[in-house]
Structures are given as C-alpha cells and as structure tokens.
C-alpha cells in the first residue's frame, strides 16, 4: 500500500497489485470491486454480520454494470469514506453501497426512465430541481470526472488516493460551494444526485444490492417487514421492540 493510501478500499490499488483484503479496524471487508453479497434468503446459513465485525459472505453475483474501473474506484473511495468501517458496521463498499449505485445507474433510474427530458433546457433556480439534459447515469459520471479533475489539481492524485482528511475536505468543499457561473454544478451533483444514492444504497431493502445483510437496518433498529403491529402498539409503546434486533427484508420472504 502506498504511504498515503487511505484506510479502506481502492479498486485501483487492487488492480495495481497493491491492494489488501480485510482492511479496516477489525472489520473484515469484502474484496473491492467484487463485493456484491446476495443472501438469497439463506438467513440461517449465513449468520448476519454484527457490530462486532463478523463478515458478510461474498456473493456469486459481482462486478459492475455501469461503472468503469476508474469510476468505480472513485465511487468506492467515496462510499467507504462516507460510510466508514467502525464498531457499528463494516464500510460502505462492504455494505454494498457501490454496487447499489452501479445497479441504479445501469437500471431504470440511471437511464432516466421516467425523467422528463424534453427541451428547451434552461438554467433554473435550485428550487426548480433537476434541469439537466442528460440521464442520471451520464450526469453522475460527469460529476465523477469533475471530482477527479479537482482532486488532481489540488493533490496530484485521484480521489481514491487521497488521505481521509484530504477527501473529507474535498467533499465539504464541493457540497457547500455554489458553482461558478456556467460551470458544472458539483454542489447540486453531490447533494441531489450522489448523496441521495448513497443514502438509498445504505438503507434500501437489500434486494437492490446495498444494505447488505440488513446491516444498516440493524444498526438503527429498523425492523423492516412484516410490520404488523396492532397489538404491539400497546405492548411495546415506549419500549425497545424486539424486531429492531432482527430485521426482515424482502429477500427473507422471497
């Protein structure tokens, strides 16, 4: 590993032979770029990862559909930084957030399936929301490129080679600084495109590839399905509901 390699995962480091598996504070992370874990309803067969850091099982279905190698490296670096490995869970790559984002970009959402994409295209106020002529997939990738350029200008390194402090500063900067007139709006890109995908990847049902093994649900205490609480409203009012510790997902019922 290079001396300034951040803790966490880098696909580039794997590709250059410098990668290491199982990086992180006692948390076993899955192989970068090959991280999709599908529990396939095998709840008993694969014990859930716990806050103490048990690993999720690697999965047969892996690999990116939309993201290229460099793009995936940046996305993995961002999600591993934004959802770091700690005593609550493994990092965002191991949680499947990068795979989630990739699948969303390749799927209906990323292809602008229901987005209104007819012109004319005008510069709106922020309150007008998405006003770009491109699909979310294309827009997300443009943003990754811009991010890489800034990173290169500042640190002579791509985002996935920055230290945690450098990446942190960069993310604050782009998420808070309004764009120069006429420039690509990285602020809106981060806050309205990347960040929501990141959150969805963490908290959506695991059928979409993120929130692997319901670890994010378990972390916050969301029980998921089946959600029939008629008597529980009284029994568990004001008390911790046992289902908070054993969330159930669509996978568990499929």
């Amino acid at each position, binding site marked *: 590993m290079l001396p300034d390699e951040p803790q966490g995962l880098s696909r580039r480091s794997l590709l250059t032979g410098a990668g290491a598996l199982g990086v992180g504070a006692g948390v076993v992370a899955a192989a970068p770029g090959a991280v999709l874990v599908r529990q396939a309803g095998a709840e008993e067969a694969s014990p859930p990862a716990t806050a103490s850091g048990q690993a999720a099982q690697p999965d047969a279905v892996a690999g990116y559909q939309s993201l290229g190698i460099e793009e995936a490296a940046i996305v993995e670096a961002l999600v591993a*930084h*934004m*959802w*770091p490995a700690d005593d*609550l*869970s493994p990092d965002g790559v191991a949680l499947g957030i990068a795979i989630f984002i990739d699948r969303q970009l390749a799927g209906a959402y990323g292809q*602008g*399936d*229901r*987005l*209104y*994409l*007819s012109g*004319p295209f005008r510069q*709106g*106020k*922020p*309150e*007008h*929301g*998405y*006003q770009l002529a491109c699909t979310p997939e294309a827009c997300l990738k443009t943003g990754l490129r811009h991010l890489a350029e800034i990173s290169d200008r500042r640190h002579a390194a791509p985002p996935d080679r920055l230290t945690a402090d450098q990446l*942190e500063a960069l*993310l604050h900067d782009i998420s808070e600084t309004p764009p120069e007139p006429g420039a690509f709006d990285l602020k809106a890109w981060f806050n*309205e495109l990347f960040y929501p995908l*990141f*959150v*969805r990847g963490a*908290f*959506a*049902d695991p*059928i*979409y590839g993120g929130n692997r093994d319901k670890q*994010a*649900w378990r*972390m*916050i*205490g*969301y*029980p*998921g*399905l*089946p*959600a*029939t*609480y*008629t008597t*529980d*409203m*009284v029994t*568990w*009012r*004001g*008390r*911790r*509901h046992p289902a*908070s510790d054993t969330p159930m997902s*669509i996978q568990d*019922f*499929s």
Partner: protein
Amino acid sequence: MATRLPEKEIVVIGGGLTAGLVARRLVPAGREVLVLERGPDWSGSAVGELPHQRDELRWSTYRGMTRRENVETYTLRHSPDEEALPMRQLLSFLPGFGVGGAAQHWNGQTWRFSESDYVLRQHLTERYGAKSIPDGMTIQDWGLTYRDLQPYYEEFEALFGIAGKAGNLKGVRQAGGNPFEPWRATEYPLPPLEMSEASQIFKDATGQLGYEAFPLPAANASQPYRNPDGMQLGQCQYCGHCERFTCEANAKATPASLLFPLVRSRPNFELRAGAEVIRLNTTADGTRLESVSYVDVATGQEFIQPGSLFVLCSYTLSNVRLLLLSKIGTPYDPVTRTGTVGKNYCYQVTSGLNMFFPDRYINPFMGAGALGFVIDDFNNDNFDHTGLGFHGGGYISATQTNGRPIDTRRLPPGTPRWGSAWKKANADWYLRSMSISLHGSNYANARNYMDLDPDYKDQWGRPLLRITFDFDENDALMCRFANGRMEEIAAAAGAKIVSKPGVRKSPYDTRQYQSTHNTGGTIMGADPNSSVVSPHLQSWDVENLFISGASVFPQNSGYNPTGPVGALGLRLAGDLLSYLSDPRRLG
C-alpha cells in the same frame, strides 16, 4: 383516424376518489356509467402484496404509483414575469395514477373544513374589516355553507369508516374531541387508532400548555369495519407503509376497496383503464359537451366517446388542464384579474421540527397514515388574528406515519452528513426521535394560477400545465407564528434536543414533498364572473359538464382536502341524478 364509439349515458373522466363516489351512487340507481382512467388497474399486482408492498425504494422514493413525468409533468415559475421550467422529477406533490387515483396511496387524514371556510371573505370582513384582507388575497366564498355539506360529511365518514372522537355533537361539546370541530350529528363510525409514544408525548406537552389534543380523524380502520354499503375493511396494522403505498391489510379506505367493487360487476358500469382523455369536445355552439377524445395507451388508438352527461374527476391539475386544452371557459389573466379557469391555485403551507429524547423509545416504524394527536387552536380563524398581520393558520400535530429508513431518519441539528459520527447519530436517534408538524392554510393570491405552458409538451404533443406559484408574505407570517407555538410545545415536552423549524417562504421549492393538496383552478361560487362551476359543481359554460375534486375550492384551508372533496362528491352524485331526470341548470 379516431374511432367513434357508441354513446354512453354518463362519461366520467378519471377513475379516482370522486369518480368512485359518483359511480357508487349512479350505477345502483340504474344509470349507465363509463369511467375512463388513464392509469392501470393496480389490483393483483406486487404493489399491494407482501413482501413487495414494503419496498420503500420502489413505491416511495421512486414514486412507483404515480404518473411518469416523461409522459406528463407540470412546469413551474414563481411569478408571472418569469419563464417556467418543467418539474423533470415530480417530488413536491404526487398526482395519482391508476384506478383509485391518489386516494389509493393517500394517508387517510380526514377532516371537515371549518364553518368559516365556506364563507371566508364574508367571515373575515365581518370580524376584522374589509381592509384586513390585502388586495392581492383573492379569497372567495364557496356559494354554500357548512350546513349544506354537513350531511354529506356524515355520509362520507360512514362510507370510509373514519376513526376519531367527536368534539361537537349537535352543538354539545364532547370531551376528548376537537373543541373547534364544526358540529356533527353522530359520533365517528370507529373509535380512534391506538396512539404511539410520540403522540402521547405531544398530548402531555400540549396539555401542560392548556390545549386539548385530540385524535386525528383517520381513514385507517381502527377495527374491522363494515360500511353502510356492506363493504368491509380490515384492521389497521400500523405498518408504516400507508402514504405512497396501497394497504396490504385492506384497512385503509380507498376507492378500489370500498367504491368500485360495489359496481364493478354491474352490466351498466364499465371502467376502462389505460384510457387517457386528451380533449373534451363541445358542440358547435360551445354550450354542451358532445364527447371526449381518449387514447388507449395499450394500442395508441384514439377514440371518440360520446355521452349525454360528463363528470370531470381527473384531480385538480388535470381538471384544469383539460378545460384549457379544450378551450372551455375563459382562462384567468393575473394582470386584469379577469377570466376564471386556472384562477386561485392554492397549495398548503407546512413546516415542522424534530425532537430527540435519549431515554425514550419512540419506535417510529409503528405508524399509520393518519395516526396522531392534534391541536386545532391555531387553525384558520380559531384564534384572534387582530394585530398579527396575517390570516389563516393550521393544525399542529405529532403524526407518526412511518419510520421508513431511506426518508425518515431524524438527526439532531449539526450532525455531520457522513462519517462515523453520522452513522452513530443514526444509530442513536432513529428509535428515539419524533417530529411535530404544522399543516397550514394557503389563501388565494392573484399571482398564483395555472395556464398552458408555451414551450413544453407532453408525450402526445400537447402543452403542459404551467403553474405560477409562490408562497407570499401571509404564508410566511402565518408559518412563523405557528412555528413559535411548535417550539413552545417542544420545550414543554422536555426534549433534549430540538431542531429549528423552517419557515415556508418564497421561493417555493419543488424538490421537497410538501403535500398533494393542490387546489383551485375550476373554483366554485355563486357568480359566473368569478367562478368556473356553480355551487352544484355544474360548469357555467357547458351545461352537461360537472367538475369534482379540490379544483373547486376557492382557496385552501388549514386541513387536508379529502373530507370536503368526498362530501362534495356525494352531494354531486345526488345532483347528477336530479339533473338526469330533468336536464337543466341546477340551482
């Protein structure tokens, strides 16, 4: 080439709530009813079945039950001198799509409007003087009073099995109910829902401040229920997947569970799903509707459907757009303030704050669409507005509708947006936080209206509806005032951390869901010069056209709209029968 179909007696445009109310009455009376609904029939698909009904990403985040924006969306500008931009993703409100309409994926918060709402201009003039109403505030009276609607509210609540507690039975104050409730003839059909920890906290806090919190009237059945039509509802499971979803337990009152099944098998009823009405065709002299044109979306074929009576039930926005596209009535002009179609578009002023309790389990995932305690002390004209500088108000409540984790994770102010501290805050507060919210009025403003967009088209090549809207000073002042009351409640509740409520002010932000309570545009009234439909919802321009839904509200109240939409729909059904037996201008 469009195919001309055999004439039907009654043609209903749109297959949502009000369409269901009309069909339910006219079909058993032997009348021939055809409902044209542009969206699908959802019954029997994953949307209503476990486990897929509980898919937050699909149904909530990606708005799976609502109309796709690439087919039709709306454009928005904040004032009449700006260029409008399309809402390329519809986030702020969610027009319904498919059999049952928006009432298939609604929450079920079911109110009666205040007695002053129907006579708002008259009421405010009498109490505060005409000068207290700013020139730009184009509020109007409805042309009827609460007394006219009261029996229909009663009927609607019985049909939909509303759970609640009466506050005013025939003028006699009832403990535990809304002290400001307009008088009602009977108790609610079902007892209130079981309250959550959050609701209890709210009730205790408001009690300390001298307010009397009461249960929000809910169309989520608190017990199994059989309505007067013999239709059955199951018991609410507090599943937290109500708004934006259909009810897997058949406990939420919807058109598809209570209204359409009643008439579906009758030979004199037909529901065509996937039928997009694109135009209302008037006779040569423009005084009557002769037919509607629709496209069968499965084949792309265009049809002309003649009829003798037409009911426009396609929700506020489509109601207005279809009139404009069909050149029925005079479009409203915000400069001269003449014309009526598109006039007095109103929305809803909402805000809220979050409270955090380290030692209490709130369990936000156990919720229902209309679960919560409410105070109504600061709604409409329930309090003295002298010297406040605004009119209107809203109800303040602790409703616990869901803890779905993509959207509903409350974090204390100042929490970083990512990293270990963010993760920890999620872990610490998800189960231990709640919110209080304001659901406020939006009074009409001369600059807020709807017309056709000059630039943007839908997939059929027809102009999109353009919405010109912004919150005004009255809204911001009202919101600021109500926020102050919410902060007092939060202080009384003893929350460890309280977030600052935002003020709903200009510019209106299309990126945030605020409510699907769009009103106005085909407003009702006693004077044809200032309204589109009469107090009997009959078009002033086209005698055999009636219009139903919140598009007829002259302005929006500080309540959710569906109570009066339902009551007006039931009253309309009776009027339609009367019209059919003797076609004429009613009343």
